[in-house]
């Protein structure tokens, strides 16, 4: 009667780590390694169905109930302010979201500051908590070029190793948030498909905490 649990997988940098984690939790997905061209992939046991999606779309699908669950970075989740459950911090895709500026620069105070970012809402919340209201410029790619070309004084972006920042002559001013991938679950699905979803949560939770 109840349909199978639909789970969104993030295309891109998290994809292999997410499917790897699922496999170690006992959820094997034939074709998930790119050998299948199907849009929907079933796991071996036929409990779950997986749909690879662009990460930024995943919270939208899960919040609306079009998908029951998904794996997505907390950077995207906080930016969209999605109303979903986050029962497991998967610990993959760890990085930091930071405020960064050119090495030599002194940041202007208050409203004069211009910040370029892919995360305008997160950036606004970060500065609002510090009672500051900079001008935020929303960009879609290569944010670190903003200050080089005079578009902005600073950036808010993800940093894994810090190499990109260093190579572009920038320094970290302050950490905005620690980022990692989360399992997210639709509020209604958690109740209506509770047995399957709780099993998924336990499987992932067990693998994640074996590693720590």
């Amino acid at each position: 009667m109840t349909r199978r649990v639909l789970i969104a997988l993030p295309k891109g940098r998290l994809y292999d780590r997410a499917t790897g984690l699922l496999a170690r939790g006992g959820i094997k997905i034939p074709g998930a390694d790119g050998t299948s061209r199907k849009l929907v992939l079933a796991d071996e046991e036929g409990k779950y169905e997986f749909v690879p999606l662009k990460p930024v779309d995943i919270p939208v699908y899960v919040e609306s109930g079009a998908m029951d669950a998904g794996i997505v970075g907390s950077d995207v989740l906080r930016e969209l302010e999605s109303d979903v459950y986050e029962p497991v911090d998967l610990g993959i895709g760890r990085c930091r979201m930071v405020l960064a500026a050119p090495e030599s620069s002194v940041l202007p105070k208050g409203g004069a500051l211009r910040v370029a970012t892919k995360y305008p809402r997160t950036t606004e919340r970060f500065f609002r908590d510090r009672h500051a209201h900079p001008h935020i410029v929303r960009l879609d790619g290569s944010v670190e070029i903003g200050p080089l070309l005079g578009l902005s004084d600073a950036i808010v972006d993800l940093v894994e190793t810090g190499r990109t920042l260093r190579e572009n002559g920038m320094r970290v001013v302050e950490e905005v948030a620690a980022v990692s991938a989360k399992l997210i679950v639709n509020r209604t699905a958690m109740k209506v498909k509770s047995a399957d979803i709780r099993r998924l949560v336990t499987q992932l939770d067990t693998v994640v905490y074996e590693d720590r």
Partner: protein
Amino acid sequence: MGERSIGLPAGFRDIVFDTAERRRRIEGEFAAVLNDAAYREVVPSMVEYLDLYARGNQGVRERALRFLDRDDALLALRADFTPAVARIVAGRLPDLHLPVRLWYSGPVFRKTGRHSAQYRELAQIGAELVGGLPPEADAEILDVALECLARAGFTDASVHVNHAGIFRGLVDSLGLEPGRLAEIRSAIDRKDMRALDVRLEELGVHGGVRSQVGALSRCVGDERALEEAAGSLVNEESRSAIASLERLASALPRWKDRIVYDLTEIDEMEYYTGIMFTFLSPRHSAELGRGGRYDTLMREFGADLPAVGFSFSMDALGECA
């Protein structure tokens, strides 16, 4: 003018033919049940002062579709029925016999994010029981709601029942300063119990109290979930809330297999003061409806009366029929 005026603004739609007929039929079944149970229909105004929504469920005011009156007063399209019903009852109190039983059906309008999957016009049907106390009034409102669902053919629908006092009592017993409570409530609401436990430990919350939070997060199921919660929670407010759910359970034997006790939810908005519940169907990916007890709302309209009510989404009912 031109093409733009023929289409619809984002977030609105026409309901036609089969869907319209299905909704009319469901509304008819619900109305018959409600009228039989001595609930009387009210049709609150479609336009309100925006400030009506400063009372009651916080968050509705921000989401109301607003516009200006001739004298520049801020008006809103109806964004919620409950405050309007509270006003209607409070304004007519001398002439009403308590408890007052009312039902309503119609659209409410709420802002959504740009390009959201949500609609801005939502069809609702619901009822309020003002001036009645638990457990009788709570049992009555759930009985009526479940009868509406049954009569309209939603035979596989269930209701997840909880009590706001259970988590409130536990959160109060954590001994945290008020500034931390919002953070902890929202962490409980996200259900990452490991992260929550780490955070509570950082804040110096005793292990014995932390383990109660973990235990409560697993209390879902039949009446045994209530026993389990009663066995692990020690504070008085939580225990008395569990006891009132046990009384509710014994008052509703007829619906025993329709009721799930789900104590894992926190009322993050702090709107409800007693029972709170959600109607669900395995055939639908969104909740069918919700409701609960809000004993402080009527006071904001100058009448200190307890109240309990429910409201169904006609959009969800129509899609799942």
